[in-house]
């Protein structure tokens, strides 16, 4: 009796473990995995990334070279471990040959490492923007059609020094790799132009009370460069206003995006006039951008304006679809031909021309912006100027750029 029931339990377990995947796609269908954060605090961002990818898919009616495209979702919680697990499920269980994602910087590096173990699968970056994903030790089958965090800062340092006349700037940023990259991009130009950065405050992510940090900013700086995101940015800006901060601000790419600009509170006064830079601008008035915004808005639950994440996932998905169209949807040679086409792809996006360098990282336009009040009272990033075709080494010779070393708390430095 006893044996019998235990055996049953064991059998039940074993069959549970071996249940085969039920999702068997049609022979002609092409499965594309979309890996984003569909759980945890970044769910909203991940969902907007997916909207971007679906916008690209809807443009071609869900078909590429006569094959139906099936999107398989993979979910991470923004931690690298969960990104790897999701990627492995998409590749090894769901059998996708093309994967678009992930969303955040360190997930990107983790997925790049995983890509090396799956040479037959093509990985196209979502919105992750860490420099080392493609710059150092890249993977042959990992492509990034969006730009990295240092590229996003192109033009800002020079603008702050020359046009705004800031000579001394203090830095307040979160203490992890993405802000390191942004600060690097800003300071590379700013220091080269002759500016000085006497103090850098690296604040742990998720810190709430910035007032002590604000009090410790030297009184004699001309401006404060702020690279904080989401809740951290809102907290900093509010407390900066509360404590009567007078120094003008310079923003990182996610410090002044719509998630911060739309938050309620007394941020407005300190934000207006803040220069920043990034891959998109709210008041971009080209027909391509407007058409993209309209198409994006057709997606369920869309924001008034596509976020950085929607934009990046859109471009990644678009690249995949274009290359599929060109190869006739064939991936039977383990995608070798598909990747060859991807490498030499050059196409027009809502934000200008995008092509890849030899590390398969995008060369694209970057937008210099300034926060301004829109016609209906909401805050917008006004387009100041377009910095054309920024490459990953920010126009510096590659050997020289690599010699600058990997980004960190101390690198770069010009006190």
């Amino acid at each position, binding site marked *: *009796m*006893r*044996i019998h*029931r*235990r*055996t049953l*339990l*064991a*059998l039940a*377990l*074993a069959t*549970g*473990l*071996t249940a*085969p995947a039920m*999702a068997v796609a049609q022979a002609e269908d092409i499965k594309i995995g979309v890996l984003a954060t*569909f*759980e945890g605090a970044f*769910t909203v961002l991940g969902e907007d990334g997916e909207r971007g990818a679906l916008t690209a898919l809807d443009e071609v009616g869900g078909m590429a070279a006569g094959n139906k495209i099936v999107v398989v*979702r*993979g*979910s991470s*919680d923004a*931690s*690298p*471990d*969960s990104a*790897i*697990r999701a990627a*492995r*499920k998409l590749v*090894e*269980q769901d059998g996708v040959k093309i994967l678009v994602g992930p969303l955040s910087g*360190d997930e990107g*590096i*983790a997925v790049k*490492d*995983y890509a090396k173990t799956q040479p037959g699968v093509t990985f196209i970056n979502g919105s992750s923007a860490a420099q080392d994903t493609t710059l150092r*030790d890249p993977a042959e089958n990992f492509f990034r059609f969006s730009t990295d965090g240092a590229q996003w800062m192109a033009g800002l340092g020079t603008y702050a020094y020359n046009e705004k006349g800031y000579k001394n700037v203090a830095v307040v940023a979160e*203490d*992890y*790799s993405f802000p390191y990259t942004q600060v690097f991009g800003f300071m590379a130009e700013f220091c080269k132009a002759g500016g000085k950065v006497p103090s850098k405050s690296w604040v*742990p992510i998720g810190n709430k009370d910035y007032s002590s940090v604000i009090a410790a900013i030297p009184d004699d700086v001309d401006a404060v460069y702020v690279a904080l995101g989401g809740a951290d940015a809102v907290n900093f800006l509010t407390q900066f206003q509360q404590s009567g901060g007078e120094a003008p601000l310079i923003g990182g790419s996610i410090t002044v995006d719509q998630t911060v600009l739309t938050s309620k509170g007394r941020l407005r006064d300190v934000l207006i006039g803040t220069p920043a830079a990034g891959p998109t601008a709210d008041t971009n008035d080209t027909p391509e951008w407007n058409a993209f915004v309209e198409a994006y808005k057709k997606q369920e639950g869309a924001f008034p304006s596509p976020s950085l994440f929607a934009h990046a996932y859109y471009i990644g998905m678009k690249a995949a679809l274009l290359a599929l169209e060109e190869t006739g949807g064939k991936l039977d040679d383990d995608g070798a031909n598909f990747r060859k086409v991807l490498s030499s792809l050059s196409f027009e996006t809502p934000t200008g021309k995008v092509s890849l360098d030899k590390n398969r990282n995008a060369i694209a336009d970057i937008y210099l912006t300034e926060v301004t009040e829109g016609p209906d009272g909401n805050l917008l990033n006004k387009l100041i100027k377009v910095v054309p075709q920024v490459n990953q080494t920010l126009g510096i010779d590659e050997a020289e750029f690599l010699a600058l070393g990997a980004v*960190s*708390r101390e690198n770069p430095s010009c006190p």
Partner: protein
Amino acid sequence: MNADVTQNPATPARNLLARIGTGHLVLAALLLAYPLVSSDFFLTQIGGYSLIFGMLALSLSLLAGYGGMVSLAQISFAGVAGYTVAIFGENNSNILGFGWPWWLVMPLALFFAATSSALIGWVSVRTEGIYTIMITLAVATAAFYFVRQNYTLFNGFPGYTGLRAPIVFGVNFRDPVPFYYMCLVAATLSYAAVLYAARSTFGLTLQAIRDNPRRMRAIGFDVTAHKVVAWFYAGLIAGLAGVLLVWFNGRISPGTINVAAAINVLIIAVIGGLKHPIGPFVGAVMVVLMQTFAIDIVGAERFNTLIGVFFLAIVFFSPDGILGLWGQLRQRLAQEDLRSRQ
């Protein structure tokens, strides 16, 4: 249980087979044969991963079930072992990575994990009962913050990548089948050790201390020492799981040992059941299957609500977890059995 006794007339010669138990043998055969029927994905991502998290939960349930000390820091001790592997073994993050061979790194990792566990155990057994859960939660958070902030030793936020399972005698443990068997062997060893220890004098003393520390102290047992030794063993198991976990992921970062991961281990242990060492593994299989396939069935968005409700239901209705449910069911069946015979 009574029905069992009547069915197994007491035979004086208890051979090895009987001591191991037929149920165990059947289970072992199934687990050994598992690679024959499963895909690589199910082998590593479900099988291997469940075994690893089962071991982590086992180390918790060793403390909680036999010692009455619920620890949320087991994932941190796994992290100690994992980071040891990264620092002393090979990594491709260009930081440290002394490149020591696996047979040197692994014992070192286990030693560090067990020692740190014993140390935290020593601090927390100075207080009583429910305090432990709070202290270990705080310790787990502190460990997470520390590795995230420290770059010289732990490489901060990105952590270490490129951590690979070794190649031993031509067997590449990165491949799914060898990796699975490696996890299986480690899990079996841990399981057997806990089972054995529970029946040993030490285990019985520990359980007596759990039930009445004051009386045990009065009789002359060193309560603190017994508890700290239990922490040491739990740290060993957690460390072993930690080494396998970094080989599984190929990387380790602060996110691997954050509070969510710590809570996850507790959920697995409680869902499976704390009363028997097989419980954590049952719990691990259930939770891992849910985690992996929730996105295809109910979507990932509200996964935490799902697992939370499941967890709550278990705590409320079956304090001994899935195993407890199984026990209740068996009892009912046995009663029906008796009734039908009458």
